[in-house]
């Protein structure tokens, strides 16, 4: 059954109808939003479970021939993001029920737009259609950053908007030039034409794609918006952003690079070295800047930048093991970072601030949340038996196998640096209690449940990584072998 189009139709329906429901009766909004979120997760889970007999699947929008239509496709590499689509949006929405008090209908609308953009970007096999979904996701991100309506969130949103627009201009330029150079927008037809173009032109197109998308997943030095944006925005958005959307942008860039240009091309032009080096730079820079942040959200934003550095290194290796390792790290980092952000939000309920120094003595007031927070921070360093340990193990062994000893060692060094800054919140939370003004708010079900669930999932993945590895171990087939993807889209 072609359920994948419903991943587009359901959020679209929610987006368009939420205003009407809100107009009729505000009570209708939540059920509608949650039904749609549950349906979307359900579809993702359906594809994950039935991956062996359903995938790869192709959907022709408008029923045209495959070479002229916009195609939506799900292959085994897409499942990496589907794991996140199945988990993150629902939990993020659940958490937002209490967090978002002002104009909740608009918030749900924007979140659905974000989801629409994310699933569209992942599934589409048409270059310009990808740009449309890219803008859909970007536009809602800008608004969600500004959602809290504070000075800093507005400032951050404007900053993100400026940098993001510059990025998307270059992305559009890249897409337009690709069309001019190849005469087609179908992602499966581009590789064949691309091979006939001179090397330098291909490299120009590649750099335009890298800059355009790199802005979005905070590739150093295009990362500056991320800490600012996270500092001012609601936790539910941050979780969705660092847990899904950022990964989607990265995913698409990887797909574009590998499918359009091919891994042989990278190895011929020493591009692999460049991208691995860039990953190392990203990682060290992120860890370095995080070391003395006093705001938890900023700190974790920098740490997200650094963690994506690991993923960049892993994918940059261009080997099968590297891709599996990178995908695994993408997933495990997203889940763990989501749990950490939720916990930070819960702690924030008591202190009213995200400044680390204000969190003094939280351990006495919120013992369970504090211990979970601390354990997750330690897990983030890669201390076993956390899922990050497994993913670091995979990345390290992939890098060493591919002969990249120095980058691999930098990963180890980066873990050490990250311990340095994860210890600071730990130390502060477990430091002498100075007294809070007022009463401690009680945590509601929808606040602690997502936290505990994500933490539990992380632990289970850490102990039994096979569950996730089984899903993603066929991912490299559709990335390293261009012909697989082309045959899948265009038919034999």
């Amino acid at each position, binding site marked *: 059954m072609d359920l994948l189009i419903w991943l587009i139709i359901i959020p679209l329906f929610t987006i368009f109808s939420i205003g009407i429901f809100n107009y009729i009766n505000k009570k209708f909004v939540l059920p509608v939003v949650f039904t749609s979120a549950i349906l979307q997760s359900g579809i993702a889970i359906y594809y994950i479970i039935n991956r062996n007999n359903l995938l790869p699947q192709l959907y022709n929008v408008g029923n045209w021939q495959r070479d002229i239509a916009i195609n939506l496709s799900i292959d085994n590499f897409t499942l990496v993001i589907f794991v996140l689509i199945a988990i993150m949006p629902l939990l993020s929405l659940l958490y937002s029920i209490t967090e978002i008090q002002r104009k909740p209908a608009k918030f749900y609308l924007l979140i659905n737009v974000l989801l629409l953009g994310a699933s569209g970007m992942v599934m589409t096999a048409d270059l310009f259609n990808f740009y449309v979904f890219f803008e859909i996701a970007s536009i809602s991100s800008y608004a969600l950053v500004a959602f809290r309506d504070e000075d800093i969130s507005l400032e951050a949103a*404007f900053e993100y*908007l*400026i940098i993001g627009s*510059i990025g998307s*201009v270059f992305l559009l330029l890249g897409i337009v030039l690709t*069309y001019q150079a190849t005469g087609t927008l179908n992602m499966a037809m581009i590789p064949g034409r691309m091979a006939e173009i001179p090397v330098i032109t291909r490299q120009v197109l590649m750099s335009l794609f890298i800059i355009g998308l790199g802005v979005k997943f905070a590739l150093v030095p295009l990362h500056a918006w991320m800490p600012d944006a996270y500092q001012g925005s609601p936790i539910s958005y941050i979780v969705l952003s660092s847990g899904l959307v950022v990964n989607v942008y990265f995913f698409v860039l990887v797909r574009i690079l590998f499918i359009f240009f091919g891994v042989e091309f990278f190895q011929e032009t020493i591009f692999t070295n460049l991208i691995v080096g860039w990953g190392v730079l990203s990682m060290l820079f992120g860890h370095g800047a995080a070391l003395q942040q006093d705001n938890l959200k900023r700190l974790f934003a920098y740490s997200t930048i650094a963690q994506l550095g690991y993923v960049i290194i892993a994918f940059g290796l261009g080997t099968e093991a590297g891709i599996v390792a990178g995908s695994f790290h993408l997933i495990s980092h997203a889940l763990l970072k989501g749990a950490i952000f939720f916990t930070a939000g819960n702690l924030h309920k008591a202190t009213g601030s995200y400044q680390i120094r204000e969190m003094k003595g939280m351990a006495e007031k919120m013992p369970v949340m504090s211990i979970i927070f601390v354990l997750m921070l330690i897990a983030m360093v890669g201390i076993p038996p956390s899922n990050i340990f497994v993913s670091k193990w995979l990345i390290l062994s992939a890098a060493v196998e591919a002969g990249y000893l120095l980058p691999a060692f930098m990963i180890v060094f980066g873990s050490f640096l990250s311990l340095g800054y994860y210890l600071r919140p730990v130390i502060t939370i477990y430091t002498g209690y100075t007294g809070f003004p007022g009463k401690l708010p009680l945590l509601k079900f929808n606040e602690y449940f997502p936290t505990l669930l994500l933490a539990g999932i992380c632990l289970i993945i850490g102990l039994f990584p096979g569950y996730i590895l089984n899903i993603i171990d066929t991912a490299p087939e559709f990335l390293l072998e261009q012909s697989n993807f082309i045959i899948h889209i265009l038919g034999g």
Partner: protein
Amino acid sequence: MILLYPTIVLLICMGLYTVLTQTNMIKIIIGISIVESSIILLLGAMAYFPGAAAPVLDHPFELVADPLPQALGLTAIVINASTTAIMLALVIKLHNRYDTLNIHEIKKLRG
């Protein structure tokens, strides 16, 4: 035709230079709009061949302009307009809060 690409590149550079050097937020937005428009100009230029007719086929033509970049351009225009609207809304809001349009005075986030 010979000056087409230099014009587009010049427009892109002008826009980017505006973004980099102007301090007024509205002017920065204008700069970004210039860059975006120049890319739409590129799309339009790609569609055109010397002597081609517009792609409205009410009777058969020898040579028809490429309709696809035009459609893409239309989409891009709409998207750019939406982005610009959001930018302007944010500028209004920022002006209310910070009481300035100078971008160098809006620096609460750092570090």
